[in-house]
């Protein structure tokens, strides 16, 4: 009993020590070359029920969300070599909304085992259909009528860009990447990302973009006590 407590205290101390000495990995992702033009989602505009929820504006596809200076959003940056350290079971649930017959957000990253709660904000029926490709992840398809309670999903095995789709509205997609540790981030509109508290060491870091770099662009870095930086360019040839 006492021994266990001592060990637990030691383990806690070790974690605290590691956190204290761990640094943040920051960086920026930009687009090289020109992205193809986005398309209007015409079937959404033409749909009898969903079209009414738009308030005039016709949404476009969001494959390359690029800023004025080529900053690229929706890039998933993952530190490699830390596999098997998922804290997903204890993490707060990630949220996916279905609003005006689109998924928000369309690019999401979570930890393996983390809960993903899917909400239906629309007055129409959606079905949330996951189409995984990694072994260990099971395909699910659940209807969610207007006002129905949130659905909960979780992804047991690591997978990049697992497709969530709605079969009722065939233009609705979300792409969820599951990582089996907490050391990842998704770039914002400014192309920047921050991965907090990476234990010091040498790593490979990969930047994934669903269209521009589906298999990723890699970089080697060393994280020291004061952190590290890594910038990426996703080339569109």
């Amino acid at each position, binding site marked *: 009993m006492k021994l266990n407590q001592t060990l637990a205290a030691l383990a806690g101390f070790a974690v605290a020590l590691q956190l204290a000495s761990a640094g943040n990995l920051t960086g920026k992702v930009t687009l090289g070359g020109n992205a193809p033009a986005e398309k209007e*989602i*015409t079937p959404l505009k033409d749909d009898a029920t969903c079209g009414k929820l738009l308030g005039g504006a016709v949404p476009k596809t969001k494959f390359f969300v690029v800023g004025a200076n080529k900053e690229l959003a929706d890039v998933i940056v993952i530190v490699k070599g830390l596999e098997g350290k998922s804290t997903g079971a204890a993490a707060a649930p990630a949220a996916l909304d279905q609003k005006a017959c689109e998924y928000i957000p369309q690019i999401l990253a979570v930890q393996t085992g983390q809960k993903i709660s899917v909400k239906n904000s629309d007055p129409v*029926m959606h079905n949330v259909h996951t189409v995984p490709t990694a072994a260990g992840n099971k395909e699910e398809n659940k209807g969610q*009528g207007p006002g129905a309670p949130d659905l909960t999903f979780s992804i047991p095995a690591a997978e990049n860009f697992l497709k969530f789709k709605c079969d*009722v509205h065939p233009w609705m997609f979300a792409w969820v990447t599951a990582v089996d540790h907490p050391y990842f981030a998704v770039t914002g509109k400014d192309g920047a990302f921050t991965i907090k508290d990476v234990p010091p060491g040498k790593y490979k870091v990969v930047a994934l973009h669903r269209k521009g770099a589906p298999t990723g662009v890699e970089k080697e870095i060393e994280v020291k006590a004061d952190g590290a930086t890594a910038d990426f360019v996703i080339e569109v040839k």
Partner: protein
Amino acid sequence: MTVHNSSLHRFAVFTVLATLGLVGMGGLVTSHGVGMAVPDWPTSYGYNMFALPISTWLTGGIFHEHTHRLWASEVGILTIVLNCWLFGKKSRRVLIALGIVLLLSGIAGINRPNGLQSSLHIGIHGVIVLIATFFWPRCEPASRQLRVLGGWATVVVLLQGLLGGLRVVLDSQLVADVRLGTVFGIVHGCLAQGFLVLLAVISLMTSRWWQFSGRAGSPLPADGAHGVTRSTSLRRWFLFTTLLIFVQLLIAATMRHQHAGLAIADFPLAYGEIWPDMSAEAVASYNLRRVEVTTSNPITAFQIGLQMTHRIVAFLILLAVWLCAWKARTIQSIKTLAFVWLGLIFIQVGLGAWTIWSNKAADVATAHVVVGALSLVTGALGCLISFKRKTVSASASVVDFSETKMADRVSV
């Protein structure tokens, strides 16, 4: 000698038209990519399918998928009634039983969720079938051939319903890395057109023209002299071309059920080339450049190859049908059909090109499916007529034959 039953023939034609509409509705489901919009079967979102509330049904892909299911159930009933009708007055009892079963199952379900809607739907069908039994099958049975075909139609329509259901239920199951939803979707799409051909054959064989042409004293024109000498080669060409169209259907169904959109986005060129680059880097770059709105599966080299094959086979079909029409141009019984066929193929080529230029717009792609089905049916009926012509001609007198040869020489 049997008296021609024109109501039966009209009913058979009506069933063909209803089935053509059903093929179109099924085509829309696949064109929109909404085969899974109702994720359960035989229930619909947990309801008995006739009880699915209308408010749920009229949105997005549920509309296409659920309408397809309801329409399919109508075609199922039409087919069973047609089958009974072909069996003549003996089958009246079967129809009465069918009506009573429908009526009782309507009444039985009234307390289920949204049961009134379902009960009305099923019950009204029961009443219609019951009323129909007072008027319809008072005729003698049709020929044995027709009765067998009618029996097959019922078997195929039931099998087709089951395949459609399995396409939904087994959608995510993998066999050798291929989704069963894809496999069953392809089989369901191809068998649908086979079923349409079967019904069209029944319609043709119940027609006045078919039953009387070639008979002594027939009021309808039989073939002129040319039929006999040309028939062997014409028959072969009709058969070959129809089989080629069937092969094209298999290729097309495989393409459509990839749910990957256009494998090649331009026509008549392919990615700006006569023959596109199918290397891994090229395919990756095609995928990167694609901006797909609904079809999110990446395209593959296999799909590009399939699309090129589809284009080549289309060209061969055009040549073959042209040849059939040329060979048939002097043969009374089949001339019109052959030229209608050629017209359909021209329309079909146009629709194929438009499918690409419209970036696979769902309505255009579906029209391409429907005209494809019509081309297959026309070819199949052409085969049947040219084969029948042979048997009829063969039984004609020998004296006719020498005249035939003479006349043929003159015309050539």
